[in-house]
């Protein structure tokens, strides 16, 4: 079992916390001049996404988590799993609903996603920061109701709904920021 001592703690280090894989967000060494040293750590549970604070005695060791990030190409969804392929090794992996979560609405075949694997199994799937998607449904009216901030809702080919400017029409492709869900430009 690989372990890390508090001396190895730094942002991004992957460790096991209460049986779940977790990532260190922030590590602070605190010590009274003549007293016990502690590491105050903010740490994100990679399964739940929740960040908590925990204190370790300096010098303690905790179990390392076998967590790696890999870029993989999204192939298809079979109704239950999302399938990906490593473009270098052609190795294929399937991610479940827990791993993909809300990001499913941005996933388009061929796009390269970032997969966080825990013991080789996808834990988190992140789409590219920006994606180019086709509008499948939007109100054609140029003079739409402008009370909603000067835009209108548009449904994209992946099922996501984003607000687009009034001049954007059905069948057009647009560039969207997947982190904010905002329209960026026509593509």
């Amino acid at each position, binding site marked *: 079992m690989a372990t890390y001592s508090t001396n190895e703690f730094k942002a991004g280090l992957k460790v096991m916390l209460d049986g779940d894989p977790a990532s260190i967000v922030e590590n*602070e060494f605190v010590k009274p001049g003549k007293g016990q040293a502690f590491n105050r750590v903010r740490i994100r549970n990679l399964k739940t996404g929740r960040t908590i604070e925990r204190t370790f005695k300096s010098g303690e060791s905790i179990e390392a988590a076998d967590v790696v990030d890999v870029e993989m190409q999204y192939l298809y969804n079979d109704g239950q799993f999302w399938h990906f392929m490593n473009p270098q090794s052609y190795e294929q992996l399937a991610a479940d609903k827990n791993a993909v979560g809300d990001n499913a609405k941005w996933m388009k075949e061929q796009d390269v996603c970032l997969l966080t694997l825990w013991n080789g199994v996808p834990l988190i799937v992140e789409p590219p920061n920006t994606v180019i998607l086709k509008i499948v449904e939007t109100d054609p009216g140029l003079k739409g109701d402008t009370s909603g901030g000067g835009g209108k809702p548009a449904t994209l080919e992946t099922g996501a709904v984003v607000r687009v400017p009034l001049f954007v029409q059905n069948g057009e492709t647009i560039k969207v920021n997947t982190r904010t869900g905002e329209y960026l430009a026509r593509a």
Partner: protein
Amino acid sequence: MKNKSSGDWRSTATLEVLELRARLLQQIRAFFSARGVLEVETPVLSSAAATDPALASFTTRYTGPRFPHGQTLYLHTSPEFPMKRLLAAGCDSIYQICKVFRDGESGQRHNPEFTLLEWYRVSFDQHRLMTETTELVMSLLAPILKLDPPERVTYREAFLRHADIDPHTATVADYTTVAKRHNIDFPKDLMTRNDTAAWRDLLLTHVIESKLGQGRLTFLYDYPASQASLARLQPGNPPVAARFELYLNGVELANGFHELSDAEEQRLRFDHQLHFRAADGMLGVPIDERLLSALEHGLPDCSGVALGLDRLVMVASGARTIEEVIAFPIDRA
């Protein structure tokens, strides 16, 4: 990943901060010179080391004339022991500004080598030395920071006020309850070990420190006897250690004692600390027998305090990390 061409040969401190540092050093020397306190220098390398389990010394080795077969030497964690030998040998009040070294300490407020100002005042008790510490720090900071009048709070008052717990009577179970109330996810083995001093350090660093010295100098004094370190005990119920610490804006700046002068009591504390180190699997270190001989000869009644100069520059310049006030921290050393 460090980029070799990223410029890490450069200083992490700005020129302005280095100038402030130099100015403060001059002012400190002028302050003590005006008061007739003698500047001294003592060895950085010592054949003995601090036994305090909270301090880890660097070791090195000398081989050559006088020690043809080599001699293990420890880099001092503070100049306290040789300065007390000077006092016992007849020096009146003395001060020293020097680099000290502590293994294992690196963080926002820690660098393994740092600068201490340490001074001893013959015939001062802890309160008189707190007064002089205030005079020094206020003379240095008053032109830079707007500060409220200083305050003195006993260690007990601070714990009662900010953590609602009495540090002289609380049990491990009491500390556990308070830590949980403050949402501290504490190390499990603190619960199984009957080490209330470690619990107090946990609450101090996690709950209390950030509330100390907000816009003013706050002295914490009268420490629990088990944290006396090198301070003498004062009779009372319970007896407390004549020890103080200075905080400003949540940063621990200084630690002072009405110095223990009883050689026998000092030896008992050293032995006790060495037992604790052994039980904790820490490195054993040689006791400073020359200090004990000096105490047997007779240490004048005195108080001493060590002030972290880097921390002082941090507070004076508004720096968040110690790296901003030293030219080259450990990862650029």
